[in-house]
């Protein structure tokens, strides 16, 4: 079903349908993650992929036209590029261990330590949260900083911060003195 959705995204010309289909694609991959017992990832995919990005894409759609331009360039070069990339990825998976095998670095490196320590150290049933926020606290701080930077970047690019700030200054002079950004 994922493949079918991807193909219809590639062939459809109506941007509105593409946005809806990419939402469907996100939901389907969320289901796939659930089937693999990665509930946290599935949750994120459903909320971010199917929820927010669809809304933001619709917001962008309101800024542009409703249908993609038909291109008259040769379709051969993109096809070759896609096939080469796909073949390289397949070649890469040949070296990967079998799905679910227990003697891989993923299963033997730090995972046993974490799983045996979490009940003693942290007393939190959800191991994902414990690892994310405690053992890997730096990483999560970095991710939050990435979100912050991305947000600031979008604001600078789209909303024209300087213009808005001038307008704001007129209305509420006191609020900006405690500025944090």
């Amino acid at each position, binding site marked *: 079903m994922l493949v079918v959705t991807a193909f219809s995204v590639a062939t459809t010309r109506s941007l509105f349908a593409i946005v809806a289909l990419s939402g469907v694609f996100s939901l389907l991959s969320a289901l796939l993650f659930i089937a693999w017992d990665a509930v946290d990832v599935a949750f994120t995919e459903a*909320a*971010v992929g199917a929820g927010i990005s669809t809304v933001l894409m619709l917001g962008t759609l309101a800024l542009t036209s409703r249908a993609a331009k038909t291109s008259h360039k040769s379709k051969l070069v993109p096809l070759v590029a896609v096939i080469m990339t796909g073949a390289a990825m397949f070649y890469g998976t040949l070296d990967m261990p079998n799905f679910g095998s227990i003697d891989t670095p993923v299963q033997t490196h730090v995972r046993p330590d974490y799983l045996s320590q979490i009940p003693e150290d942290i007393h939190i*049933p959800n191991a994902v949260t414990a690892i*994310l926020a405690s053992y890997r606290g730096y990483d999560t701080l970095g991710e939050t*900083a990435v979100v912050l930077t991305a947000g600031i970047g979008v604001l600078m690019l789209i909303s024209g911060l300087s213009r808005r700030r001038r307008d704001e200054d007129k209305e509420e002079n006191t609020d*900006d003195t405690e500025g944090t950004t």
Partner: protein
Amino acid sequence: MRHHLILRVITKLLVGTIFLFALYVQFHGDYSPGGGFQAGVIMAVGFIIYGIVFSLDKVKLVFPPWLVHKLIAFGVLLYAGTGVYSMMLGYGYLDYTAIDPLHPSHGQHLGILIVEVGVGITVTSVMVAVYYAFSSRTPILSDEEW
């Protein structure tokens, strides 16, 4: 969307539930799937759906842009500040044991809760800020255009 009575009523019913679910995902993240990132997104969806169905001006009254912009930074500061706090008490950066040295696991609980709140606040405000930035560029579509 002044004429869509069904949408307006359903949205009014749903917004509260969405916020409640976001808070549940946020603070129950220790026991069930979810955490700051997911809760932040769900919370932002609550504001965005309100903005779409009613109007941008109304949601800006509820959650004004200057507050959104301050909260973006506040979330990260809350997270980083937790680390600074634990460093002040002589522990490693982001070592939550510092919060309650006598009961290390208590400290871990609280620390995780606090940093997740920080993550949630930042994600919510970034999403809402991006939505504001996008939708205030265009006039809102009239009903016929849909």
